[in-house]
């Protein structure tokens, strides 16, 4: 009895340690990024990084505005494409499809999440970019290409979490609505979606996190130009691409500026996450 309990405690302790170690790694990463990047931001001046247009780190110019705008536009575009598509797909699978169809489609969609981002990027460069170039104009490597690829990449996240949210709505809600004479479509729009709202917001937040953090596919299809985009067909550079592109050769202040880019990305994701959770909470009340 006693030995059994002791064994259990050992297992519990080691599991706790493992759990703590992964959180600790998260804190170490955070600490390290801020330690490397924050002094540099203060040295250059936050205004000169956040609101300046020129990025030429080897010539002492550290304006990140084009990348901040690029990241926000690419993420916004991805949500514009991915959320309506993903949500409709989830509604179809939960409310309208036969169970047999769902049993095939849901795992297939979740499999999409396992495709490496470099493969999405490669498909983008080989098929999507030439398509945009020949039919819509511009160099093809563009905000539009980035938003489309990211929109597809966030689909599995949006769909599978929306499905969970919709499935969590009690059956009695639907039955009540139908009993009052509402059609299935009315039940979905007026009862099920409002009831599942917080879960759907979570799906959007996680999709947004995936889109803003994505690097490889974005580098491959957005062209990485340092200009503010004048149209969806213009190339953009995101914060993540900026870090990944220039890390290889960066030294001295250039390297610090890339860490500063990381700090700003980190803060941006924090703000977006907090804002999204806050709005969903306020609405729920």
């Amino acid at each position, binding site marked *: 009895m006693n030995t059994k309990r002791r064994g259990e405690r050992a297992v519990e302790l080691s599991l706790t340690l*493992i759990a703590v170690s992964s959180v600790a790694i998260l804190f170490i990463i*955070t600490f390290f990024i801020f330690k490397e990047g924050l002094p540099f931001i203060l040295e250059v001046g936050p205004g000169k990084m956040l609101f300046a247009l020129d990025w030429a780190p080897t010539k002492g110019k550290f304006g990140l505005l084009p990348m901040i705008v690029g990241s926000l536009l690419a993420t916004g575009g991805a949500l514009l494409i991915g959320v309506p598509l993903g949500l409709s797909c989830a509604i179809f699978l939960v409310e309208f499809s036969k169970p047999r169809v769902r049993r095939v489609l849901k795992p297939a969609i979740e499999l999409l*999440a396992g495709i490496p981002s470099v493969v999405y990027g490669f498909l983008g460069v080989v098929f999507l970019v030439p398509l945009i170039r020949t039919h819509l104009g511009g*160099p093809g490597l563009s905000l539009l290409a980035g938003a489309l690829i990211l929109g597809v990449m966030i689909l599995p996240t949006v769909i599978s979490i929306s499905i969970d949210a919709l499935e969590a709505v009690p059956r009695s809600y639907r039955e009540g609505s139908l009993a009052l004479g509402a059609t299935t479509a009315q039940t979905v729009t007026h009862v099920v979606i409002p009831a599942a709202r917080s879960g759907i917001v979570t799906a959007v937040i996680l999709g947004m996190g995936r889109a803003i953090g994505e690097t490889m596919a974005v580098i491959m299809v957005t062209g990485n130009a340092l200009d503010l985009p004048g149209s969806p067909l213009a190339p953009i550079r995101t914060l993540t691409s900026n870090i990944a592109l*220039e890390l*290889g*050769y960066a030294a001295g202040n250039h390297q610090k500026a890339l860490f500063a880019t990381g700090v700003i990305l980190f803060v941006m994701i*924090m703000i977006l*996450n907090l804002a999204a959770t806050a709005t969903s909470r306020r609405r729920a009340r």
Partner: protein
Amino acid sequence: MIVTLDSRPARGIRGTGSLFPFVFIVFFLIVPACRKAGDTSATLTVAGSTSVQPFAEKLAETYMATHPGLAINVQGGGSTAGVRAAETGAAQIGMSSRHLKDSEKALRQVTIALDGIAIIVNAANPVKGLTRAQVAAIFAGEVPRWSAVGGADRPIHFVSREEGSGTRGAFEEMVMGKKDIAPRALVQDSNGAVREIVASDPDALGYISLGLVDRRVRAVAIDGVLATHETIVAKQYAVVRPFLFLSRAEPAGSAKAFIDFVLGPDGQRLLGLEGLIPAVQP
């Protein structure tokens, strides 16, 4: 943050957590092994230009295969870092892919190879030649359409390299002069990626190492001279950068032996096979 990126937060934590013990074990198995491998009687540090680095690594690999007592440590950092490393003696050999400035001329320099930078267009582009001034104006964003330089009436999509790249540095120095590359430029992070863009976009213009030009793209003549082995050796082609080995004093011992190998027939043949123009003509 990492947690939120995962579609299943709870599973994400557990998944990474259980990996750590494994990672640590692997780490402790590998680290001593690495140390043992590097623990030879003599080490030679070669540091500097990231453009020269891959070639220096190949050379070092080949050399070490026949000289087991020597460990050659090749590091990047950029040409300027290579100059500093040679000046301070932090590295026995510094690497540079640009000419030395006047203030740096106290160093001993050996040219190990030449690298031509080809200005490339799509194979379907009718433009056969450009002047250096035209290329500079295009990359500065002053010439938006091909029609201004003898091509079709279509926009020019110019492709550059990322800030800090040695190829970009050499291009800025030898072609751009005082002009800055426009922020509108598409940016790719390798010679190969630039070539892919130019190969697929009929309106693209880019620059890459001459050794990487293939049939899908075409190098244009610059100031009337095509980039070839012969025009580079004859110093007619203008956009050429030297790959330099630098040292503080006359190289001696293992450094001298390695430089002799690089300039010898085996080293030069290897550099030629890698697409460079050997400094010592056979």
